């Protein structure tokens, strides 16, 4: 269990040194997207059109925050369950996405894509929305404002705490962690 501080965008070299179970503090830009936004991003790729942000080296955070109070950068902003993005993630990874932040299990296709194109899936602590919001310094809607909490936002984060769940070598923290601590 190593600890790293990384700056986004991430390179192949950055993600290759990470192993499932490592703690990473991310700084730089993250983009937010949930199911509805993912569907649109994949449609743009299929049509060969330009995406609302640079995908190469990008990290996408699966989150639908609460509305900010006056004077706040963002409301509560913890991760949402990731499997809803499983059918779209491999296409994005193939086109340069290097990191995803969410909570919960991914399917085989996503894990395979992480191995093949070098990308990692990070877990953030679900339900720690107030704490995680503290690490978000800027937030701005950059696409699909009509989707409300599901719009695509550009976030600037500082030392955003995540744990590597699926690395570029096919390891899975959920499976290994459980095996290690199971008592039967």
């Amino acid at each position, binding site marked *: *269990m190593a600890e790293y501080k990384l700056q986004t965008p991430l390179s192949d070299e950055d993600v290759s040194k990470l192993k499932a*179970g490592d*703690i990473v503090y991310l700084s730089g830009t993250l983009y937010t997207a949930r199911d*509805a936004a993912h569907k649109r991003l994949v449609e743009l790729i299929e049509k060969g059109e330009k995406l609302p942000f640079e995908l190469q080296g990008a990290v996408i955070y699966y*989150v*639908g*925050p*609460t*509305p*900010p*109070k006056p004077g*706040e950068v963002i*409301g*509560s*902003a*913890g991760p*949402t*369950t990731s*499997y809803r993005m499983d059918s779209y993630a491999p296409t994005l990874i193939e086109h340069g996405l290097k990191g995803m932040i969410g*909570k*919960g*299990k991914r399917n085989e296709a996503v894990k395979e894509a992480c191995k093949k194109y070098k990308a990692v899936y990070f*877990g953030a*602590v*679900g*339900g*720690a*929305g*107030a*704490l995680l*919001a*503290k690490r978000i310094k800027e937030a701005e809607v950059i696409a699909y404002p009509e989707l*409300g*909490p599901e719009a695509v936002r550009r976030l600037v984060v500082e030392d955003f*705490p995540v*744990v590597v*769940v699926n690395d570029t070598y096919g390891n899975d*923290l*959920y499976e*290994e*962690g*459980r*095996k*290690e*601590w*199971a*008592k*039967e």
Partner: protein
Amino acid sequence: MRTIAYNDIVKAIRDTIIYSTTHLSEDMLKALQEALQKEESPVSRAVLEQLLENAQLAAKETKPLCQDTGLAIFFVKVGEDVKIEGGSLKSAIYEGTQKGYEEGYLRASTCDCFTRQNLKDKVGYNLPPIIYFDIVPGDKLEIEFAAKGGGSENGSRATMLAPAQGIPGIRAFVKEVVSNAGPNVCPPIVVGIGIGGSFDMAAVMSKHALFRDIGSSNPDPELDKLEKEIQEELNKLGIGAMGMGGTQTVLAVHIETYQPGRMCHIASLPVAVNIQCHSSRHAHITL
């Protein structure tokens, strides 16, 4: 007859929603602290520490504990001698819910189940709530409220076992549900189990079981023993906090049966499992 003003109900519900979505339930706070003492896995301990820090921060800044501020769920007991003045009880609950979620800067998470369009403009901000009414003797109005997130609901299941499957069948089903849910339901969790009644009632009881304080015992000694045994068995799965591996996955198991008599039909054994994530947002109002 005792009269309760419509506006008092609206205000009580509004305030309760804002308070409970920003202040972790006392029993959950205590349970997480105890889990941190007992947890052996370092990753799980790091998660538990973050959760305790999150609870502190949320209370200090009146910021939602979790961004999924859930569906609003109400179990309401209306005393037979209560009269509501100034409007209907149902509309008071709707109005209190809308006000609490909107004025508390909570998330509107209700949508049309086909088009997936948010209902905040068509029906109201995070409306409609889910309400279970019961009529009881007396002149009090008792309201239990929970903000229930989607993640832990998605990991919940119900089934109809054959009566011959009995307690071993119930245990196997609960284990299967918790094991499959794994990290997705944000462990550590409380497992609510509804046994008996009818297909629908088992599910309602499994949800209501989550209102019981963590650490309290089941009034039925036989079920109390079963709860503890199931909890121990589930903690052997090794799921840990946020599913990252560990020994403290299930903080409590709460079983509810249909009363009187732990009733069900002679041909059936309904069982439902409702999971409560660590972001426990429950409250009790008596008016």
